[in-house]
């Protein structure tokens, strides 16, 4: 599992188009909407109801419980059986990044300088058991997902930003008082008010998370809720068997009048879990399957097939929300020295890394900034320009720069350290090997250490103490924003406050007062344009510290079978197809 999958990524349509171009040119031969057509607009637009939408997953949900999940695909898909206060506009490219009201009638009303947010619920929204949705259910949903010890899998932003009770709130399962979390008020069944510790201008993005999908207290069964979920969306979950499948059918009590954004086209939706990845691709190409729900693109083995002229028109190659990069721990010698870090910035052959990860199409574009081009606030710059020698590898000039930095660092002959990667991510390990090779050229000797992805952040790379003790100077990983803004992307990675004893996400342990301050100010700023500008500047400041080596902006080859209607890449869920209005043509 990737530590974090994006809830949203911002990208300019123009950009997407240009990416499409560098992604292998336009459709050649074959009919169909065309290569990369789904990146900018929704393909096969249709209102035809009926049929069965078949999806498959090579793995399984962390949990389909809206209050206990983190995956992007899960957030994307949960909207079929649940309605959060807000959501992202169904569509492709730029428009897909717009936050719009869903369960709420309108976006949040900020007051008190952005510390208080008020939402009004739509009337007449019913669960699949016929009961009516009230604001208490939303409150309860947030409480159970953020404050209980049982539901651990989802993000904990509400806990982080909302004012806590005094004494600390123990969550609805332990705290039997009827007040619950006092910082969420529900003056009436249609109104809900959130009180934040600090001004926070991007709260509308936060409540777009599946964690605000209403859960009636009476129906909550904690960890077992995933097997008996109550639906507030157009579909109800008929059954979910972990490791096997989930089937959805229409929610008889869903009323289109209360829901302007959903089309609810298929009669039934099936998801098979734990399927063989290659087989998923085969079935996609054969037309017996409609979607790979995980949205990570086709397997390397299928790549040649989908790039063949007859298939290419059905392929999109969108930028995904990830930055794949290498953090340099400022607390591991000699990387505590700026110049040693800068040396690494130069000496790391990013093209080699890119190829190792799958090349420009399946791997991604070479990265030079922390913010991926698809994230709002991205400004293009390259502080450590590299050049390739004609027969592969970095050219002498670049290597000389690196050597010179090593000189200044006092390590003219290079140094020794460790590179960490996730053992069950062959491509990441391949990347590590590529980097190991290129660093060797300037005398930086590295040893590759591998850890299981499951424990990467909670036990190893994400545990500063471990990193220091074992001298793991370089850590390869990937990161995507939890909500589609520069803040959502940067805060967890570069803000001093993000450093945690375990499950750390600021792997470089960068704690620069300037950077921290810049971020803190940005988020309190109601002016969006100003915020975006600030994110770009923070990005530059971070790159100045050379603590993180951007490797690639992730991209994937996504297959869009002919019979699938309303297929568009939504950047808000990290560049996968938007499932909200997907249908099938018979």
């Amino acid at each position, binding site marked *: 599992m990737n530590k974090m999958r994006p809830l949203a990524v911002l990208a300019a349509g123009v950009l997407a188009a240009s990416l499409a171009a560098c992604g292998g040119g336009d459709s050649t031969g074959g009919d169909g909407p065309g290569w990369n057509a789904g990146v900018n607009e929704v393909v096969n637009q249709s209102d035809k109801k009926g049929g069965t939408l078949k999806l498959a997953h090579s793995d399984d949900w962390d949990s389909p419980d809206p209050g206990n999940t983190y995956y992007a695909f899960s957030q994307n898909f949960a909207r079929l059986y649940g309605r959060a206060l807000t959501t992202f506009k169904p569509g492709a490219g730029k428009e897909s990044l717009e936050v719009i009201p869903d369960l709420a009638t309108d976006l949040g009303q900020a007051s008190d300088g952005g510390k208080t947010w008020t939402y009004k619920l739509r009337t007449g929204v019913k669960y699949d058991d016929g009961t009516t949705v009230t604001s208490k259910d939303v409150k309860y949903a947030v409480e159970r997902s953020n404050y209980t010890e049982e539901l651990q899998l989802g993000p904990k932003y509400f806990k982080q930003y909302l004012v806590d009770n005094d004494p600390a709130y123990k969550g609805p399962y332990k705290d039997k008082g009827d007040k619950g979390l006092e910082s969420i008020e529900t003056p009436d069944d249609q109104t809900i008010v959130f009180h934040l510790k600090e001004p926070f201008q991007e709260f509308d993005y936060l409540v777009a998370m599946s964690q605000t999908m209403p859960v009636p207290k009476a129906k909550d069964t904690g960890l077992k809720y995933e097997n008996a979920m109550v639906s507030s969306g157009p579909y109800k979950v008929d059954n979910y068997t972990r490791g096997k499948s989930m089937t959805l059918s229409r929610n008889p009590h869903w009323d289109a009048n209360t829901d302007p954004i959903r089309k609810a086209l298929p009669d039934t939706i099936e998801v098979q879990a734990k399927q063989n990845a290659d087989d998923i691709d085969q079935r996609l190409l054969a037309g017996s399957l409609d979607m790979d729900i995980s949205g990570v693109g086709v397997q*390397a083995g299928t790549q040649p097939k989908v790039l063949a002229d007859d298939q290419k028109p059905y392929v999109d190659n969108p930028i995904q929300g990830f930055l794949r990069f290498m953090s340099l721990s400022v607390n591991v010698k000699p990387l505590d020295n700026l110049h040693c870090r800068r040396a690494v910035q130069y000496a790391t052959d990013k093209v080699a890394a890119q190829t190792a990860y799958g090349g420009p199409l399946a791997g991604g574009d070479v990265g030079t900034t922390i913010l991926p081009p698809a994230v709002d606030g991205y400004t293009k710059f390259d502080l450590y320009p590299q050049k390739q020698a004609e027969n592969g590898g970095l050219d002498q000039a670049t290597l000389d720069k690196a050597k010179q930095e090593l000189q200044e660092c006092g390590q003219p002959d290079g140094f020794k350290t460790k590179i960490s990667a996730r053992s069950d991510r062959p491509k990441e390990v391949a990347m590590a090997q590529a980097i190991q090779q290129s660093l060797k050229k300037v005398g930086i000797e590295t040893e590759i250490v591998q850890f299981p992805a499951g424990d990467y952040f909670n036990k190893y790379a994400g545990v500063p103490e471990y990193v220091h003790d074992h001298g793991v100077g370089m850590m390869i990983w990937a990161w995507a924003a939890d909500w589609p803004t520069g803040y959502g992307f940067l805060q967890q990675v570069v803000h001093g406050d993000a450093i945690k004893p375990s499950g750390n996400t600021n792997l470089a342990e960068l704690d620069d007062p300037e950077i921290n301050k810049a971020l803190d100010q940005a988020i309190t700023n109601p002016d969006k344009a100003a915020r975006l500008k600030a994110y770009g500047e923070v990005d530059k400041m971070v790159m100045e510290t050379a603590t993180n080596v951007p490797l690639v902006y992730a991209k994937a080859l996504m297959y869009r079978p002919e019979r699938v209607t309303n297929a568009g890449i939504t950047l808000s869920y990290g560049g996968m197809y938007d499932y909200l209005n997907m249908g099938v043509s018979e």
Partner: protein
Amino acid sequence: MAAPIEVSGSDTEAHPEAVLSGVDRKKIQGRSLGQIAWMRLKRDKIALTGAVVVILLILIAIFGPYFVQNPLTYHQNLIDPTYNRPKYGFWHSGISMDHPLGVEPGTGRDMLARIVHGARISLLVSFLATLMSVVIGTVAGVIAGYFGGWVDYIISRAMDAFLAFPLLLFAIALVGVVADGAFGMTGNGLRVSVLVIVIGFFNWPYIGRIIRGQTLSLREREFVDAARSMGASNSYVLFKEILPNLVAPILVYATLLIPVNILFEAALSFLGVGVIPPTPSWGGMLTLAVPIYSSDPMFMIIPGMAIFITVLAFNLFGDGLRDALDPRAK
């Protein structure tokens, strides 16, 4: 899977006397077990082929690495960025004059070099592991078989228990739990030793069982009684009478255990708990080949065949050796 004890049924079906009075006489005229074995082995063309290949492999494992290019050197220029696989060579294998077995997708590292270095790891691990199994197995087997009674009972039950474990799972788990830096070792040094210990430790019952059986029967033999009756000490009987007679079976089953262990090591690497990259290993190469095997099968075939040929060679040789040395075939 304990190898079946095969009798190469000698052609004496209907005329025991004839051959006894015939062949035996000659044997009595000073033909040692070794000579007989060698004589038989020489006649067994298949086993000989196996033996030759085995020797070749060992030579390759020892000296090969000095003759091939660096298995870690990248040849990005050989890789087609769009498909992320070699630009030329049939099946996009990248086979060429400089790269007889082609190059690896993504990195363009020389396959031949990786196979050769892989052979080194594979053989190193399986040999050491086998050695370990043989030592534990022999000691346990002899003790159980020779002293019998409750000692035998305990050891036998232990062997049963071991055979009842899902070894692969345990191996994976064990390699997993041993964190880097444990026992003051790091990187591949640690990993290889862990692999050796895990594989070796889990395979000893196979040897143990056989040795126990052999010892049991030996213990009843006249010459042992004779020695005992002359008041020989246990240790004397064990080392002077029993062990020498166990050499043949030990040799045979060690040879037959090596291929089993090679497969075991490959399987572990395949499941991602083998030696640590960039050190090449055959199983590891197969893992990388899995996602692309349907489009570019060469990267699966080459390491696959490497494993196959090696294991087959050892099996053929070990088989012939057994037929040649099998006491019952004498």
